[in-house]
């Protein structure tokens, strides 16, 4: 972030240029929110580009909002074209959406920013300490200086959990999942969770009961972790959104780690590699 206001001016100028030139109909970035926080901003008018900001409070994964731009704003029109500000972590989510053909690459103008890590309520996010990618992987233009820091994920917390006995792990997750209030904030915040009808709400077949009880919650979280296999880019949006503080990234990172170990696949690195569970190799030997 470093050079601060200069970078913000560049982002505002780019957004203005894109909107004025008709390249995009809407620019998604961050603006000043209430109580000293940053919030997502949807800029339709070039004049409003002045509202855009960029600093370490900009933690949201804006890619989630792209799903709202998949269909036309008015009937009979083309779906809108969107400009979007992405951090390196968000860019991985973007790659996943491109790979899954959720939005056409041409419809999106990607303004990438290099990132030294973001903060929530003043504290650095855990995932930023682990982040090894400080430059966006997909962009039309990239801004910001050379990042100062580089993290590494040693999966220490995952390993610690792995070393417990199954019953201890069950007790651990039971305690965590028991706090869940089934608000689905994790799902709503997740850029990779975009089913029209979620298994959690499907009535026919009714996979999950409506009761807010432990079996349903366990089922929901295990199901969601599996659905994100090879698709979770580790943006921690779910964990940040969770009002009950359930360590969802502890679950998702385990799956991501296993996907990498088994299939040599890391989610969101590009928009071409087929997802690991939609492909196979005949000769591969997988431990069962």
């Amino acid at each position, binding site marked *: 972030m470093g050079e601060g206001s200069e970078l913000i001016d560049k982002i505002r100028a780019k957004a203005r240029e894109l909107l004025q030139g008709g390249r995009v109909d809407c620019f998604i970035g961050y603006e000043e929110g209430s109580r000293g926080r940053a919030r997502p901003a949807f800029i339709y008018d070039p004049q409003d580009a002045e509202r855009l900001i960029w600093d370490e409070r900009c933690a949201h994964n804006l890619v989630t909002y792209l799903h709202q731009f998949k269909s036309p704003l008015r009937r009979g029109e083309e779906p809108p074209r969107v400009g979007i500000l992405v951090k390196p972590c968000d860019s991985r989510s973007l790659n996943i959406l491109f790979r899954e053909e959720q939005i056409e690459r041409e419809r999106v103008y990607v303004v990438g920013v290099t990132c030294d890590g973001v903060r929530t309520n003043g504290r650095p996010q855990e995932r930023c300490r682990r982040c090894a990618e400080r430059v966006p992987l997909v962009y039309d233009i990239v801004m910001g200086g050379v990042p100062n820091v580089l993290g590494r994920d040693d999966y220490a917390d995952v390993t610690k*959990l*792995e070393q417990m006995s*199954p*019953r*201890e*792990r*069950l*007790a*651990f*997750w*039971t305690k965590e999942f028991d706090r869940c209030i089934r608000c689905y904030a994790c799902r709503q915040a997740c850029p990779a969770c975009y089913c029209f009808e979620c*298994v959690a709400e499907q009535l026919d077949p*009714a*996979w*999950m*009961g*409506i*009761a807010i*009880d*432990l*079996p*349903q919650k*366990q*089922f929901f*979280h*295990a*199901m969601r*972790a*599996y659905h994100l*296999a090879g698709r979770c880019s580790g943006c921690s949006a779910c964990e940040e959104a969770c009002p009950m503080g359930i360590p969802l990234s502890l*679950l998702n990172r*385990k*799956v991501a780690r*296993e*996907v990498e170990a*088994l*299939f040599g696949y890391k989610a969101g690195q590009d928009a071409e590699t087929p997802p*690991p*569970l939609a492909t*196979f190799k*005949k000769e*591969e030997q*997988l*431990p*069962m």
Partner: protein
Amino acid sequence: MTTDYEPRIVGFLCRWCSYPGADLAGTSRLTYPPALRTIRVPCSGRVDPLFVLKAFQEGADGVMVLGCHPGDCHYMEGNYHARRRYALMHRLLEYVGIEKERLLVAWVSAAEGRRFAQVTTEFTTQVQELGPWGGMEGRGGEGENGGGK
């Protein structure tokens, strides 16, 4: 664990190989433990990992997914997909506290009645040793379906 405990085992059997395999075990008068509840599916690739989770949630102590040997799938590639899915599913289940020994993925062909009986017997013993699974059952006495729908 008492030895007379009979586990509840749900078996998803592929319509082309393992189900006829089970049939052959029957017509060959082979015996295997009655703990198994079979569910016939078109292909092991049809078995969504959700089915397995749901079975555990509804009170199964063990789940078997049986399909054709790799290369023999009636639909050419269904079991290759299943193989990938369950390699991962095993690890996820274990991580959330369901012993991986409670899920068996095996390949049994239509000619392998003896193998079917053997696999089922071994798996039943394995689950018996682990004891009842009850981790996903409700706390509120909502019947034996674990407080489901």
